[in-house]
């Protein structure tokens, strides 16, 4: 656990909470590594959703990243990045 922490060089804010992550990681993978699977709810039936294809196609991981709706699986983490677990319609 301790060794793992040392390898983490970056931190991002997820709904105000700081989480550590590795440079190069995608935002999606950084959250998954923290056990965060639920990213948003579907706009119609309000069902929980999280990343699914990790290839940029399904849009299930699209959340507010630094104020824009972005695909978390295609967005690289950056120091101080602000992530909000809300989809476009929230």
């Amino acid at each position, binding site marked *: 656990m301790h060794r793992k922490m040392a*390898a983490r060089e970056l931190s991002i804010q997820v709904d105000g909470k700081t989480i550590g992550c*590795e*440079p*190069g*990681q*995608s935002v999606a*993978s950084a959250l*998954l*590594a923290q056990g965060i*699977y*639920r*990213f948003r709810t*579907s*706009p*119609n*039936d309000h*069902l*929980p*959703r*999280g*990343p*699914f*294809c*990790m*290839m*940029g*196609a*399904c*849009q*299930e991981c*699209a959340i507010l990243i630094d104020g*824009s*709706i*972005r695909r978390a*699986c*295609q967005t*690289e983490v950056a120091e101080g990045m602000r992530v909000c677990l809300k989809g*476009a319609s929230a």
Partner: protein
Amino acid sequence: MTPRTEIADLIVIGAGPAGANAALAAHNAGLKVVLVDEAAQPGGQVWRAPITAKAKQSPVKDIDRKMGDALRQQLVSANIHILTDTQVWSADRQPEGFEVGTIGEAGTVFLRAPRLIAAPGAYERILPFPGWTIPGVFGLAAATALLKAEKTLPGRRIIVAGQGPLLIAVAAQAVALGLRPVAIVDAASRADWAKSLAGYARQPRQLARGMRWMAQLTRARVPYYRQHEVSSATGADSLAGVTLRSLKSGETRTIDVDTLFVGNGLTPADEVFRLLGADQEPCPISGTQRVVCDELGRCSVPGLYAAGDAAGIRGALPALHQGRIAGLAAAHDAGALSGAALSAALASSSRALTQLQPFADASCRLMRLSGQRVAAAPDDTIICRCEDVRAGDIRKAINQGAVDINQLKHFTRLGMGPCQGRICAVNAAEIIRQETGAAVNSTRLTPRGPIRPLETAQLIGEFGYSDIPIPKPAPL
């Protein structure tokens, strides 16, 4: 501010094995090439570059990693002009060739060239089942992407399920990470695999790797359910349990897991071809359609070429050769390569393609997904994830007279969300076909841009009101 335009002799979309080799071949023949990929580094799906330190330092360097590193080195040495982290969102025919709209850190940039090679690869197909939208259910391709780029997988108790060669690859690499799957769930039977073996035998290195993976799985005693599929998943905020069903007996069993990787093969990413109006033909593998092209990759639209998975799923090595062939053909058609030089340069790749075909066929057979299995989805199964449209909604719309998929879309909003049918359209089409016997060509959504959702801010950039070319007022 009007967006910037770059001019080249050839645009190549996708820097996977196909696109990267197309770009190299055309560049070496003297064309001015621009290569675009939305990933941070070239390599595509199979030869995806390691991104995190953990992945870069990984001691195990398999053949895909070696091939990818070699390709990236080649691209650097040849000084190919690559736009990475850049999505292609539009493709238009112009009198003098093609215009491709891209968006990246620099905002919107248009590329123009008389020729265009599209090699955007494939999407994964997943057989929908009740619960497949629960967080914690991922595609198999998702697992390979994470393994290659970051040497990691989410989850503690995982199941790897679906069909095709990726199943073994993902399960074995999970074991290597210390994440022993609770089960492998494979739609294929032992006999299906045996049939494919003959094809695999033509590629001894790949076969050996496959055998190594199987041995690892056996050693780790991973329970292997043959001729089984996932019939449902449950969980509130995230995945809690997965139910398997025997395809033979119908018997079910439920296993507690937090993560499921599931995939049922691939389907060509064909938006660019369809936007440009290239002819399509039925594809025996995916059951949908694929772009028509000749043995040099030339499509029905003059100046447009297809290569790699996007032209029909065949695998990484055939993609490499198809890419090279398309690149040479484009150079020849541009007048940079004589007919004789083209034939000479083609010989090795054409031979290789013929040799590789049985291997490709073997994989495809394992990945073939029967329409009946898709169309058997229970009514409460979500088909369109973006809009929560269920199989029952589709059947109801069909009863109300929807006979083609565009009508179905109007009746239900299927395919209207941000993924624009990329995940659901193939499956919805199967349901329509099975219920109505509709022809394949009436089960395709009308192709429209953008190819990816566009961040409005990136699309429009900074501008003043006077920059907007507002047309003349409409009549009063």
